[in-house]
């Protein structure tokens, strides 16, 4: 195959002139203001490049979905193993309660639902839409959590849908304690000095110190969240001190951006009693 196309000298001159003109035009483009360059970029991305960008986001969504399936499968397997382990404990608990003459234990019940951040109003980063089964009617306010920890609060509900607020909302408060119960306090969202949204543990008595890395779990006081759900880990003592109490900066366990599926706590629900006479 022949690639030689040197051409006549006048054609070569024309080519050179065209190349130089294009080079100058490129320099002109590079010298444009950022807004002008962004405008050109926007025009190209919404026209010629739109099919490619659409296909890329479709691939990304597919990859995200398969990652979610893998995560959910792993979580399901872990939960199945825990349920098997818990069966013995449940039976033992029932027998001990029967011996002690205590009534049947009230067990927390959860319903799984989809968490849609920023809905129904786009651009509101603190809110989310929660969608669960139509036959579930959560009593609001109800705590929303993920397997890892607290996500936020469901504020209003209508049938299987409702509006909630992430823990990043300025009005969010949750009662917490250390796993040992040595300290209890109230957590709220807090904008750290570097601009990152963290949590602030308040109301800790002045003489009580909490080591960095300590896990904080919900205390269950208030009846919005069940007790024992992880919320965050203590980072350091915050600079703000008020009276006889001090506060701690807390790294949240769950970030709103990571959440697609959540569990709503159906406050006060009682599971149907199981017939254990056969076992």
């Amino acid at each position, binding site marked *: 195959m022949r690639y030689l196309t040197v051409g006549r000298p006048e054609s070569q001159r024309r080519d050179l002139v065209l*190349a130089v003109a294009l080079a100058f035009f490129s320099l002109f483009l590079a010298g444009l203001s950022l807004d002008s360059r962004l405008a050109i970029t926007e025009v190209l991305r919404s026209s010629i490049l739109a099919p490619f960008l659409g296909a890329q986001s479709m691939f990304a969504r597919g990859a995200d979905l398969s990652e979610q399936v893998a995560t959910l499968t792993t979580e399901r397997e872990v939960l199945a193993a825990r349920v098997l382990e818990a069966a013995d404990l449940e039976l033992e608990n029932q027998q001990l309660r029967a011996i002690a003459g205590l009534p049947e234990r009230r067990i927390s019940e959860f319903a799984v639902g989809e968490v849609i951040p920023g809905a129904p109003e786009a651009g509101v980063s603190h809110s989310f839409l929660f969608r669960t089964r139509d036959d579930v009617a959560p009593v609001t306010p109800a705590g929303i959590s993920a397997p890892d920890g607290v996500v936020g609060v469901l504020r209003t509900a209508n049938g299987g849908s409702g509006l909630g607020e992430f823990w990043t909302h300025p009005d969010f408060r949750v009662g917490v304690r250390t796993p040992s119960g040595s300290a209890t306090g109230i957590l709220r969202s807090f904008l750290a000095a570097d601009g990152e949204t963290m949590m602030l543990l308040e109301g800790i008595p002045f003489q009580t110190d909490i080591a960095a890395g300590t896990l904080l779990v919900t205390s269950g006081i208030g009846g919005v969240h069940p007790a024992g759900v992880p919320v965050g880990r203590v980072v350091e003592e915050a600079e703000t001190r008020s009276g006889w109490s001090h506060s701690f900066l807390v790294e949240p366990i769950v970030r709103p951006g990571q959440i697609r599926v959540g569990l709503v706590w159906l406050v006060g629900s009682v599971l149907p009693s199981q017939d254990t006479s056969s076992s």
Partner: protein
Amino acid sequence: METERSTWVWSGFSIVVLLILHFLLRPLFVRLPVAPNLLVGALLLATLRLRAGHAALLGFSLGILEAAMALEGMGWYALALTVIGYVGARSRDLLFADARFYVFGYLFLGTWLAESVLLLLGTSPPGPVRLLAGGGADALLTALVCGGVEAMTASILERQV
């Protein structure tokens, strides 16, 4: 005349396919430590058949599109690819004529040079090791992929003749 038309059709088709693959798989290629640069490869393949001025125009257009895709380097990418298109078309005439084997070398050297320039124009210019080793590996992969495409196109055209 018929042969010339089929040369244009097959060459154009292979170059368009390479460009579509580049823009579709760009996020994947960006993440990989070593990946073929199909954009530069397609441009260099086009310079094998285009006049220098037309090659510069193609390079300019691809540079604008690449900058819009990368959200950086608007103007600079166009300048780099314009120069690569023009120099590529001119050096083709000076360096070799018919030998297909030299296409691999042409693609390898051209991509290495282009990758180095594009990397230096990016927001985070790499160190010399990334330029030499990473750019070289990318260029080798590009030469293999695009050289393979060119060899296939050439063999189809030869069979038709």
